[in-house]
């Protein structure tokens, strides 16, 4: 009846059988896990987002020439139009581990994992403005209304555990990232794939707990009655798969009411583990909670976990003093993230988890501000992201920036390339993972993106 180029995935979703789709059994191709286009290296993703723009020049991209030319004038356009003189790295760098990967002293715990890390030093984004740039890292687009990567991955792979959301977001409790909840939106994809916000509290998910005024036995009786009525209604209306799905959704909801608080309850973790993550220090404690919860979610089969460090105005946005800002942020970030990597490795989870350490852009090689308050401006033309886990070359730095770290000197990696490669590791072809919307078969990678073979194992 229609030549509309919709995919089988989309057809199943459009038929209204959201749950049948979530279990994705119907998509399983012979010999392959559900939903994938080819055998995957990774089954799940952990993304740690440093909001505000972490400086590549003070973390992973060592530029001796920039240090040498510190204080020399250099003309380049900047977001605020207030570019100062060149500013060398303000934290000492060293080569780490067997691999000799360059990491600055700002991130000692992460540096200890150097031999496991893959650093891309030639990331390129499309906006020098926080909100669109965060959106770009999440969705590939600088405008709002597009699905974030977690939503696409959920759409592509479905959930491993049907009584847990497949895409979980752990925001920084001090502030949301710029743009707020639209950063983990389903965009035009069905609501079922949107990110679910978790907090490490008694009610980690909205509407999870039975209201306090409702007696548990009254709720059980009502649920049992409801189930019988809905069962009979479905029987009287054969052929409506949505009615069956509704019955199942209530069973899963009840199951989530038990499973989610159990996962969010961090008190069951040992004192040693809590100390490892940094629960004993008020500086590290907030991100430690998010990271530990992330591990527990990944362990339980959640497909995509996104951890935000920082939000609007409590972030890595070092316009003023880069020393003050990055020292403060790194003190919150380094220990919990390092502990999370150790913990994932110890539990064997790194073998099939892809970990992405991202930020929306880097920072300029020229200073912003002067004297004691020298910082760096937004810089989307070249920045660094780190990764670890399945399918990557470990202890490896991909791409080289120019001598000032201003632009890629070789092998630029666009956000689309970065996304295409991540999907590839998950067994998804970024060109085939698409969804028809208002005239276009939309993709995470728009009409761009190449799998970067250069950093794959």
């Amino acid at each position, binding site marked *: *009846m*229609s030549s*509309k180029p919709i995919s089988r995935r989309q057809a199943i*979703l459009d*038929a*209204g059988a*959201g*749950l049948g789709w979530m279990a994705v059994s119907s998509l399983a191709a012979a010999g392959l896990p559900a939903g994938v286009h080819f055998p995957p290296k990774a089954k799940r993703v952990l993304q740690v987002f440093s909001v505000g723009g972490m400086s590549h020049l003070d973390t992973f991209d060592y530029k001796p020439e920039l240090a040498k030319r510190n204080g020399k*004038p250099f003309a380049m*356009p900047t*977001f*605020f*139009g*207030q*570019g*100062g003189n060149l500013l060398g790295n303000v934290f000492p760098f060293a080569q780490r581990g067997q691999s000799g990967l360059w990491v600055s002293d700002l991130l000692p715990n992460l540096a200890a994992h150097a031999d496991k890390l893959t650093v891309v030093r030639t990331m390129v984004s499309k*906006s*020098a*403005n926080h*909100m*669109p740039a965060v959106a770009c890292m999440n969705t590939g687009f600088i405008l709002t209304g597009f699905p974030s990567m977690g939503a696409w991955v959920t759409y592509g792979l479905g959930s491993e555990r049907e*009584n847990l*959301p497949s895409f979980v977001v752990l925001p920084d409790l001090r502030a949301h990232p710029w*743009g*707020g909840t639209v950063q983990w939106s389903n*965009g*035009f994809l*069905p*609501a079922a794939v949107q990110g679910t916000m978790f907090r490490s509290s008694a009610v980690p998910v*909205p*509407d999870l707990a*039975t*209201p306090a005024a*409702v007696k548990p*036995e*009254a*709720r059980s*009786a*009502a649920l049992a*009655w*409801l189930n019988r*009525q809905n069962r009979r*209604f479905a029987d009287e*209306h054969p*052929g409506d798969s*949505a009615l069956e*799905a*509704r*019955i199942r959704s209530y069973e*899963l909801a009840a199951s989530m009411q038990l499973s989610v608080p159990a996962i969010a309850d961090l008190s069951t973790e040992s004192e040693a583990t809590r100390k490892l993550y940094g629960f004993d220090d008020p500086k590290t404690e907030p991100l430690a909670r998010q990271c530990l919860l992330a591990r527990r979610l990944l362990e339980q089969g959640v497909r995509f976990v996104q951890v935000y460090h920082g939000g*609007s*105005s409590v972030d890595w946005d070092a316009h003023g003093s880069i020393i003050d800002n990055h020292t403060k942020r790194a003190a919150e970030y380094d220990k919990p993230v390092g502990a999370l990597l150790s913990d994932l490795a110890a539990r064997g989870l790194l073998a099939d988890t892809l970990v992405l350490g991202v930020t929306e852009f880097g920072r300029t090689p*020229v200073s912003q*501000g*002067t*004297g*004691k308050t020298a910082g760096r401006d937004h810089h989307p033309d070249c920045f660094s992201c780190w990764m670890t886990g399945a399918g990557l070359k470990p202890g490896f730095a991909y791409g080289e920036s120019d001598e000032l770290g201003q632009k890629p000197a070789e092998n630029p990696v666009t956000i689309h390339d970065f996304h295409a490669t991540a999907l590839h590791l998950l067994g998804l072809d970024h060109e085939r993972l698409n969804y*028809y919307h*208002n*005239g276009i078969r939309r993709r995470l990678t728009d009409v761009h993106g190449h799998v970067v073979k250069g950093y794959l194992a």
Partner: protein
Amino acid sequence: MVIATIAPESAQGADPAQIAGQAREVLARRCVGCHSAAVKSSGLDLSSPGAAARGGSRGPGQILARVTSGEMPPAKPLPESEVEILRQWQTAGMPAWSSGAIELRRATADWWAFQPLREAPPPAGEVSVIDAWIDAKLRARGWQRAPEADRRTLIRRVSFTLTGMPPTPAEVLAFVDDRRPDAYARLVDRLLASPHYGEHWARHWLDTVRFAESEGFERDWIRDHAWPYRDYVIRSFNEDKPYGQFAREQIAGDLLTPQTRDGVVATSMLVLGPYDAVGLTSAVDREREQVRADQMEEMVGLVAQTFLGLTVNCARCHDHKFDPIPQRDYYRLKAVFDGIWQPTTGSELRAGGRPVLTGAERARHEADLAAFDRRIGELEAQVGQLDRAGRPRLAVPATVPAPMGWWTLDSDARDDAGALHASLAPEAAAFTGGRLQPPAGKESVTAVTVPLTADVREKTLEAWVHVARPAEKGTTLFRIRNHSGFRGAALDGIHFTAGKKRRWENASTVNFRTDDVDGPEEDTPAGGRLHVAIAYAADGEIRLYRNGKLYGRPYRPDAGTAHGKLQTYGRQDAIVELTSGNGLELEQARLFAHALTDGQIAALFAAGVDNAAPPRGAEREGLVRRLAEERAQRRAFAEAPARAFAVDVRPAPPTRLLARGDVSQPGEVVAPGAVSLLRGVSGDLGLPPDAPDADRRLRFAEWLTSPENPLFARVLVNRVWHYHFGAGLVDSPNDFGYNGGQPSHPELLEWLAADFLRHGGSLKHLHRQILLSAAFRQSSRLDSAAAAQDASARLLWRFPPQRLPAEAVRDAMLAVSGALNPRLFGPSFRPFEIIKNPGSYHSYSPVDSADPALQRRTIYRMNINSGGNPMLDALDCPLPSVKTPKRSVTTTPLQALSLMNNPFADRVARTFAARVSAEREEPAARIAWAYELALGRPPRPEEAASAAELAASAGLEALCWALFNLSEFLYVQ
């Protein structure tokens, strides 16, 4: 798109099959778009070797000649390598290729949707034309339409379809008992006349036009004045406004009917998209241009998708991949709207709306404002005259050049040296003791001057300051700044900082020109007086002075860089702001267009300040009182008109085609126009590139709604059909191009569109046609044979059951529980707390309460981009900023959790139970009543028994809760 060229095999040894394969590739990419089997431009079909050999109207053997002469393909000559392939192919005698005729995977000019409306005579024997076409398809498959649904099902279905609300038990009974033959038609008429009809159908329209009441992007601030558009849409539906008029008003209502407010309000549609406040004020030109270009794509996409079902926005960077929309058409359409801006910039319009006045009102309003300004100016002059008369003539020491601005601040904020007069908000006017003072209860007050009349580069700011009390907070007392925006705007000024050290500094932190000059700590006690000055020298040096002496060290902010550059404060743009606050009060301020020397500053300090209190006679006091009254009245008057988030029109720059959509690659200038793909309707609007905005939008509106434009009616009737049956005849309501596919019932779509136009574009007529058809009235019973082939019942072998949209679920819960506040229209209710985060970024936390204002229908809820509601979101409520012609329908555990536990669901279930208890005495009667209210039917005996048992053991509220969670409650059969 960049297409790699195809290289020929070397001439020797290339076998015919290989040459043919390469030729096929060239023809497929470059030629068959026009010379296909279907289009046959110039009679030529190049989709197969046989047809190609036959040639077109110019006869055979012409292909190579046309190509080598550069005539074909038009404007895009083939690369030599590809010409060579065609040459070899022709030389080889046009051998056949093995892979079959070239099939176009895109639409060409002959695509069904681009043709004029063509009505075919319907199959005979049916009462309704709709049923004739539907039944013909069913018969062809050997299926049968379902029998008519029972009356309870029917009234529930039609009530939700038209009003988004359930029928009341009384309405159900009245319909069930109505034995008149036209009972159903009467029901339809009653519902169409209900004000709730417009409320429900407005929601559909708002989905399509992405009605958002916040700006999105980084800040997501609220748009206080978007709601009048929502009311305009509701009223338009309720009045059955002809669709052509409805469309014209939304494109150009401000021009068509300047005598009505609706005309202005209607244009909100164009500008309700996201607004990148930060990007649009970026210091980088490219960034701003990029943001504006994105904004225009959003607007062009909206207009073309909404009214034409064309994804013209896909042609921004290159010709459309699937439809015959050249890139040029995108820029023609963009030119129509290039004068349109969102009403969010400009300080007066910060609240996100523009005044809505009819043409006559506007003229009167402006005249009245001018009269106020005249009276205020006269009064100010009189007061100033009195004051100056009682005081010796002002002078500066002979060694110092004359100041550019001199504010003595004795009785007003006028400039005593020139015309840089400053003004204050009326209630803030306070001049006592010969200085500017905050009014009682206020921490600070600022007077703002008119813009400079000459550029200022090197300069000195000088001020006398009275210390009422030692300041505890940082305060900028006297500054100059470029007014045109935050980013990229320069700023310098005298700033007192109360941080770690209490000291003076240059105010321009925002420009990164501030530094600690290591001056001594400020220790002037309360009651003391200070002289502070900052000189900005031509070489970039900044010098601070306190009481006539250099304060700390002079500095240059990063010499040789943008920080270090001397800022230019532009004429007609830069303003001066004078502030008293936090205990520091200005006695006098002077602006010099010179960087004064140490000696000149010392001389100014030595000369002191003439701060003699002006004479305060009764005459002056009377004048001052009248002045305050006039100012207060002016402010109230200026703020009185209603506001709307409607178009802000500015002169449009020439529209240029952008190569690859890249703002840094502008090409030829393009005149405003419409799309060119419609047969028999030219997209040329006959406008020059510099036509005024009014001509552009009026001509386009005329073109859009002309009866010759077949898409206009087709797209609309398809939308309306979609909202009756859950799917359109074309299943992609915003895309009638190639990707939208063929309609399920082409002849029916044509007839509906033609009939709609014949009836003046009346939506209510269209509703009646559809609702009275047997196709709509049939039951949703299953036919296994039909279901096996057409599970979603697109051919309408039954009425397809549908889950209620999120808004209808909430509204039905409110209506059934008796909590619904039926108030129509007005500002949106706000079921959230606004969280104002650092960095001017707002977020929204949902709240629930029994406040009647929050019990209104969901259409009146404020639509905030980042302000979702867990229950409505889980029920597939779209993001406000996303154009949503068709909602997805999902079933998830999170949806179940929300309906189970959301505070709203819990509260309303209790209200429902309380209502039932209050309205019925007997337990059995209560259960029966709860069923009637929630489901529009009495319980069956076994249901009544088990429900009674549940109510007895778990409480009536448990039963009421369960009724709201029934599939039967959420699905319309």
